[in-house]
């Protein structure tokens, strides 16, 4: 049998089968794909920036390493303005200062611009209970849409080890099997979504604070004024207690999350990923969660996207009116989408 050539360079003789992909590749290509797993030269990378400590440190570290090791990355700051007066407007000021300090282009995308609703308006309709559901769903989609507008290949977020461990626990307690299966991945990418990474997956929150402190970084430090999520609060306190008793507990929880997966029989019962019929964003139902929530808000039935009872009530009221405000159709990421206005430094 003639020697096989490398599946990547088609030149050298294949020396190994890559365990992750099964590709037969040569040694040099293996080194290359291994070393450039996360980024490759010329990548356009958006840093999810809230102005908080994690994203500020992330922006600083990304810029520092990019320059020190000549990664050749094109870095952007991407901020989502949820429209929370007295909280986000202040933190965005920090992001704008970061833009100048780090000389990075900044794009701010607001909920108001994208969904026609600010969080202040949402809270005035739904109250404080469940408002985090709206914010979380809207933010995830807004980040992808903002990244698509910037024409970036990759979004990096400042989730740290404490966040990941907390998410593992929360997903177990909420029974969110789908998220539990993927929340410990350092890098995730669906078919139609932009690659997302959490470079601080193994970095303890305390170290991030220490880094910001010793580097004298400029960050904003206040809890969201609409976050009475008592349930997550319990998990956070528990995690802090665990860490105090045994500092390795955080990394041990992440290790646990990496060691298990969803059983095959359970996977088979999960819904297939499709695109939202209304806005084109990825969804496991005909309508994505953001469109469902938005329709509920627009029709004055905010519970429609939260409870089964609310959804049934909405359905019993008949189909959505023709003039219903909807989310702009999602443009899958491509470099050609990059012609947008950035914030002036």
């Amino acid at each position, binding site marked *: 049998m003639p020697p*096989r050539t490398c599946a990547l360079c088609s030149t050298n003789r*294949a*020396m*190994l*089968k*890559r*365990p992750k992909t099964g590709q*037969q590749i040569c040694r040099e290509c293996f080194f290359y794909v291994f070393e450039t797993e996360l980024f490759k030269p010329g990548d356009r990378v958006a840093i999810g920036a809230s102005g908080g400590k994690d994203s500020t440190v992330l922006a600083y570290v990304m810029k520092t390493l990019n320059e020190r090791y000549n990664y050749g990355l094109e870095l952007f700051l991407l901020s989502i303005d949820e429209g929370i007066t007295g909280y986000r407007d202040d933190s965005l000021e920090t992001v704008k200062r970061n833009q100048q300090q780090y000389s990075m282009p900044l794009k701010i995308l607001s909920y108001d611009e994208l969904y026609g609703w600010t969080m202040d308006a949402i809270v005035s309709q739904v*109250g*404080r*209970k469940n408002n985090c559901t709206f914010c979380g769903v809207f933010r995830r989609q807004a980040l992808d849409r903002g990244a698509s507008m910037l024409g970036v290949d990759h979004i990096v977020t400042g989730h740290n080890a404490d966040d990941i461990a907390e998410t*593992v*626990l929360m*997903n*177990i*307690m*909420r*029974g*969110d*099997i789908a998220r*539990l299966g993927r929340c410990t991945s350092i890098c995730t990418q669906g078919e139609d979504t932009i690659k997302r990474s959490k470079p601080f997956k*193994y970095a*303890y929150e305390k*170290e991030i604070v220490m880094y910001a402190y010793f580097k004298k970084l400029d960050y904003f430090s206040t*809890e969201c*004024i609409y*976050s*009475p999520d*008592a*349930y997550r609060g*319990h998990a956070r306190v*528990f995690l802090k*207690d*665990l860490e*105090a*008793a*045994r*500092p*390795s*507990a955080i*990394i*041990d*929880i*992440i*290790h*646990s*999350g*990496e*060691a*298990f*997966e*969803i*059983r*095959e*029989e*359970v996977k088979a019962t999960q819904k297939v990923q499709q695109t939202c019929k209304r806005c084109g964003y990825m969804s496991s139902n005909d309508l994505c969660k953001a469109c469902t929530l938005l329709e509920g808000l627009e029709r004055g039935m905010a519970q429609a996207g939260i409870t089964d009872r609310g959804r049934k009530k909405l359905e019993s009221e008949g189909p959505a009116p023709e003039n219903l405000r909807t989310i702009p159709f999602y443009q899958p990421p491509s470099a050609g989408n990059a012609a947008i206005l950035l914030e002036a430094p």
Partner: protein
Amino acid sequence: MAESCGNPSSEQDALMLRRSKFDKSNICIKCKVNPGNVVIRHAVIASAECFFPLVSSKFRRALVPAINPGPIPDTPRKKKGSLKAAGNLCIGFSGGLGSSVLLDLVTESYFPSENGNTKGGSDHPRHHEKVWDHGTVCYVEICSALPGTRDRTEEVRALVSEYRHFEFLPLRIEDAFDEAWWAKVGGRGLESNMTVDLADEDLILSQSTTSDNSVAALHSYISSLPTQTAVPSAIQTLIRLLLLHTARSTGSSHLLLGTSLTSLSVSLISSISQGGGFVVREEAQEEWQPTVESKRTVRVNRPLRDIGMKECAMWAWWKGVHIPGKENYLGGKQGIGALTKNFIVGLERDYPSTVSTIARTCGKLAPKDSSDSSCILCGRPAQPGKPDLASPPPHLQNMTPQIPPVAPASQSSLTPRLCYACHTTLTSRSSRGSTASGNHINSTPLPVWVVSELDGVGHRKMGEKEMKESISEYLLE
């Protein structure tokens, strides 16, 4: 009324209404006739008429599919037919609520009634051939590991004597270091006396010339552990292995534990918090095989896994089940288990569905890789791949001591034979460094089953050739 983050004097919705304790009415949701006496999660269940059958049926639903030999079906057993276990029955008795209720339920369901009870119809297992020929109640006394606690063996013996079908088999936690006990349960004779250096993160093994008595060895082992959190984990592992080896030696095909739904959720979260994600399935149910050569397995089952702590307490209260009580070894504020228990019990009060959600979610998980080896200390499957590949990136290893570098070639290390969770137990430091206080930290005795496995087995650094062999399936030439 509970206060959220807002100011209740100026903001109307800053006060969140407390949920009512039950969903709709106070009529029993089972019979829909009688007023209820107990609130279980969000629903109301009436007293004896509905409560006892409900608990009994949950108990049997969890146990019956696992009784006959062969694979355990995922769906509840529908086919009528004889129930016959492959061996005897061993009940792990702690003296706590769960195991006391378990003993009562097993006796009621599977052993002939003491007062000629003919309830349950002609198909009731009680009226047929015995499911298990012989039953043993095994109790592990842990007072030697916990200074200031009392020996409860006689109290437990008195309780078990009320259940005439069961033989009482008392153990002591120091048996884990006792060669005589090891020989009694059929363990291989120990040729050497291996100890481990817990001060060295390589966990270097050495031969010891002296031999402590079992109590002294237990004390050395406990006092050499690097953190206070490691003590409850170590005690738990010792109890588990003592029960398993005893179950095997009594010819038991089943080891039943009185883990309630609440305790199971605590165990699951506690195990995950200590890096035991790979064996999350074993926390609920496991098939234990002492050695690869041995074909006889012990099936560990927790038949109360669908019954909450509150239901167990109601059962014990209404049935007058005597509970001897047990020592709390979970470690107070310093123990992962104790912290988890406080957390879960608190959650169960405010969010009653969470406990069952945790158990159900973990029931949908499986290890990412199959395992062909087991941890020498806890006997559970070990994650394949060398520990250093499973550990976080190198820059983190200094901060949170995980898997240390392999020991020099001339020395043997325990590390390659341990699972991640056991390795963490033996090496993780607290934020104030090691809290080990023993004089034997450099030559800490090991449990007899570990010494037995290590006997005659050399450990060395992995050479280049062996390293190549471990990745050979991916190499093309």
